[in-house]
């Protein structure tokens, strides 16, 4: 009898945890890029050369004059031509920047690893893409996942809120993750600084 009760508790607890994760996903905050319509700041030619910042150089950045909120993002790829995609995650500033052909097309506040599960620094190519990934290790949904390392570090959609952290992944707002997932390809470089 007590084993049945034990089983019920385990199953019930698991269901409660799952529903909590579901809430997190639905509560994901996002703000559309079009509303912000940021201006763009073009860098000088000598500043824009490859190597100074990123493998393809940085030619322009989105001009956002106020701190982004947690869960907020800006995406503006209007009149940005095709080109190689480069993603730059800045852990100290807690922001991610997505570049296409050297022009920044998106930015958001990120979550990153804490404690003994820190997000690794360096430049990593995207080794796998999975739209509806569900982590076996953490039993958690990781939508729009871009995997960076063999041991599971990835960029994926998260409920980005103040006070949250990850187990080493980079968490980005869900809508932002969807756009990034569509825009990035396997092999694109991600620099985590």
């Amino acid at each position, binding site marked *: 009898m007590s084993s049945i009760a034990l089983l019920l*508790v385990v199953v019930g607890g698991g269901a409660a945890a799952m529903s909590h994760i579901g809430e997190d996903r639905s509560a994901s905050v996002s703000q559309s890029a079009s509303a912000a319509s940021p201006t763009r700041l073009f860098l000088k030619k000598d500043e824009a050369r490859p190597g100074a910042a990123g493998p393809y150089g940085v030619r322009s950045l989105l001009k956002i004059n106020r701190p982004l909120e947690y869960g907020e993002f800006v995406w503006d790829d209007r009149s940005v031509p095709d080109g190689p995609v480069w993603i730059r995650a*800045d852990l100290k500033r807690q*922001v991610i920047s997505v570049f296409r052909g050297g022009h920044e097309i998106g930015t958001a506040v990120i979550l990153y690893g804490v404690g003994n599960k820190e997000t690794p620094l360096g430049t990593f190519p995207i080794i796998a893409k999975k739209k509806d990934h569900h982590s076996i290790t953490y039993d958690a949904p990781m939508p729009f996942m871009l995997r960076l390392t063999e041991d599971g570090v990835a960029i994926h959609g998260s409920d980005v809120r103040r*006070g949250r952290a990850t187990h080493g992944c980079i968490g980005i707002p869900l809508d932002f993750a969807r756009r990034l997932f569509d825009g990035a390809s396997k092999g694109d470089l991600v620099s985590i600084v």
Partner: protein
Amino acid sequence: MLDAMSALLDARSPGERTEAAIHSKSIKAAAPRHRVKSLVKAPKAGDVAAQTPQTPAAPVPSLPQEAPIVSSSDAAFEEAVSALETVPVTVQQAALLPPAGGSGGAGGGGLIFAPPGGGGGGGSIGNPPPDAPTGTPPATSPVSPVPEPGTWLMMLLGFGFIGFSMRRHRESRRPQTSPASV
């Protein structure tokens, strides 16, 4: 990095993360595990374990410098006992009390204290140093997280019953079908 780029990124940054601001919330659903633990009365075991040494001491006659099993400063053990609120342990505690009266004497009386966690230190001789460890019995987990034998037995009985009834059901059906088939 470029100065212009740094300035722009600084402007949009929500600031550096402070470790204090992070409220750790594991996705791995730690809650169910705690609930299972509470089902098997683990928290009280933790209390006892926290207050008692972990190394099991054999119930051998103790050396003079060792602390007696019962000392006047054994508040921790009393607290643990009251937390457990079980009659047997209370009785054991009472059984320990007499040697305390004779602590100044030759002592060495056999230690009969045998709680679930095994024996504690031996009988005492002489006065213990004031800062000596209290010598409370080492507390292993009083309740195992593994289901109890009774639970297993009941489950096996249940399966046995199901198997038996299935067997009976099959046997009872056989005489009915065989005449028709013949």
